[in-house]
């Protein structure tokens, strides 16, 4: 009787979730794998089996390879920047004695903003190309000519727009993660170190704070890595338009979006093959980075 009760309760709680996971996550993943070996243009129930042709297509498509390459470089830049900046902010906020709640929430606020809204503000107001744009107004005070921020390719000023938007949006979240971890480091460790003659500052940071943050660091790095490859919202909204997307700063997901769901025609076979390749790349990079981090221990 108790077993039955437990089983019923178990299924009542787990059933709907398990069903949702199955129907809306695992089934689509499996379906995507299935589509990737078919010629599936404008259909989700294709009939023409093409084997690995879609994979060959995406792996020889310069646009796709470029997007993976660009985003490896992007990840290599944005991850250290985010980690260093959010850790520095967390350390500062952690030290503050007055208005703590205010400073903690003020850094977290941007995280609550929609990526789409922020992108539009960045594109049309902050970094608009006309002289009334905020960035151009500020530079104008120093006598600079108005710059077309999102339209200038040489030098690639659009990266300034994309990266500041991303940093503003995501830093707060990592600051909170680091803050939580900082507060879990026992205070007596620092006290003991000071008694033993360690200088406050770099020495205690290097030998107490940093080791204490190991778990948080690994979490932040991994989340950041996945986020970098998942880049879509601000890129699509800042650089994309109704006619398409320029061939530079094109994240893999934007490429896949235009391939499999674009307005001109939906090539779900090729898009699925690209998605599988991208998933493998992310898995591989995450595994590798996990291994590197563990070795660094």
């Amino acid at each position, binding site marked *: 009787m108790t*077993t*039955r009760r437990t*089983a*019923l309760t178990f*299924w009542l709680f787990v*059933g709907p979730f398990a*069903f949702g996971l*199955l*129907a809306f996550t695992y*089934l689509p993943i499996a379906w995507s794998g299935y589509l990737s070996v078919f010629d599936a*243009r*404008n*259909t*989700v129930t294709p009939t023409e089996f093409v084997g690995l042709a879609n994979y060959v297509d995406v792996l020889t498509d*310069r*646009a796709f390879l470029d997007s993976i390459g660009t985003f490896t470089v992007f990840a290599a830049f944005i991850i250290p920047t985010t980690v260093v900046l959010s850790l520095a902010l967390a350390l500062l906020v952690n030290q503050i004695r007055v208005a703590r709640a205010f400073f903690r929430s003020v850094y977290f606020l941007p995280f609550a903003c929609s990526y789409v809204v922020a992108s539009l503000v960045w594109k*049309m107001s902050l*970094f*608009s*190309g*006309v*002289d009334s*744009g905020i960035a151009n107004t500020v530079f104008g005070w120093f006598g600079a000519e*108005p710059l*077309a*921020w*999102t*339209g*200038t*390719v*040489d030098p690639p000023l659009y990266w300034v727009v994309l990266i500041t938007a991303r940093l503003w949006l995501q830093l707060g979240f990592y600051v909170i993660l680091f803050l939580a971890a900082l507060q879990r480091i026992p205070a007596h460790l620092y006290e003991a170190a000071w008694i033993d003659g360690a200088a406050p500052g770099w020495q205690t940071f290097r030998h107490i704070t940093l080791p204490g943050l190991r778990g948080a660091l690994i979490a932040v790095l991994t989340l950041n890595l996945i986020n970098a490859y998942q880049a879509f919202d601000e890129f699509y909204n800042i650089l994309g*338009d*109704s*006619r*398409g997307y*320029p*061939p*530079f700063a094109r994240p893999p997901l934007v490429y896949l979006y*235009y*391939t499999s*769901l*674009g*307005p*001109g*025609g*939906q*090539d779900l076979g090729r898009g699925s093959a690209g998605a599988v390749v991208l998933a493998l790349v992310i898995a591989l990079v995450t595994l590798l980075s996990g291994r590197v981090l563990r070795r660094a221990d």
Partner: protein
Amino acid sequence: MGVEVGRRSFFVVAGLLGLAACGSNTGRGGSTDGTLRHWYHAYGEDGVQDAVRRYAAAYPGAKVEVQWNPGDYDSKIVTALQTSAVPDVFEAQVKVDWVRQKQVVPLDDVLGDTRDDFVRALLESQTVDGHLYGIPQAIDTQVLYYRRSLLEKAGVTPPRSVDELVDAAKRLTAGGVKGLFAGNDGGVGVLTAPLLWSAGLDFLSQDGKAPGFDDPRAATVFGKLRELNPSLLLGAPADWSDPGAFVDGLAAMQWTGLWNLPKILAAHGDDVGVLPFPRLDASGAESVPVGAYSAMVNARSADVAAAKAYVKWLWVEKTDYQTEFATAFGAHLPARTSLAAQAGPLRDGPGKQIVEFVTRGGRIASPARWSARANTALSDAVSRIARQGAEPVGELRAALEVARDEIARLDR
């Protein structure tokens, strides 16, 4: 124990049934009550929505529900056509893939003896394998608008060749005003087609069986877009399809739609001049792109015959509605020659000139056989050439390869 297993299998069975139910949902059966669902994209001009709802309500043959679709309408249609019986009737430009997958039905018998009245090039653009799939609703076109006073002040004449255009844009760029606005992507999206035509080339060859830009002159003409780049307005608050940049005086010339003519005339009055896209040299021609959303019928519609009858009523028989639709809200050209003469805003001034551009040099901007993948490859190449200064010949060779591959696929 036995009960527990039973319960578990119940869940499994229930789950599978649920999935099976999803799988067998073809989207049919929604409109058993005979209501026709008609989709439009969200027209920017005031009054269009009210007008098309009024037309639908006036149809005597069936109840018609109009759905207005803001946002990415073209993607939405592509998705709907794959599995859904809704919409029954919609506006779009035909794609070869839709025909191959039998997602739309031929409308050859809808036109009757009015066939010759429709602009022939428009009908051809909606024809695949000899069958007509869309009834053109109204013609859209794009032209070069310029401010006479600014050109005069800079001492340039209205540009009649691509070189003159490059030169004019350069000389008009001064004091916070840019020479030309052709989109925040540096003209790649809207000028690619007119540039090809200016050199006597096209996306596809005459018979549609080969790319139309396998020619060294393609490299030359896209190189001109590179020369134009420093004089272009980039990063404007609204894109090329909006008259804002030109109206606010951010650029001396703008490439934008005929639909903006009323707003532009209201802002600058007699100071407005219009031109077609100039030609590169003697072997090219002046041109304007023409396109038309056309009324099409979903092959999965619960009642294809009723949907066709409605399309025939609205877009063939009700000529007064067609005239109003094309000319009363923003400027468009009627898709039928017999109605063009009645269009008020196009009887004189720049409007009349634009009608002449269309008659003389109107070209189809998105042929049915020109696929999205080919288009992406070409616009990537043009973007690299014009914006990043890439070497044109190699870039175009890569685009040609993709285009050939795509064309071959259509006939497999």
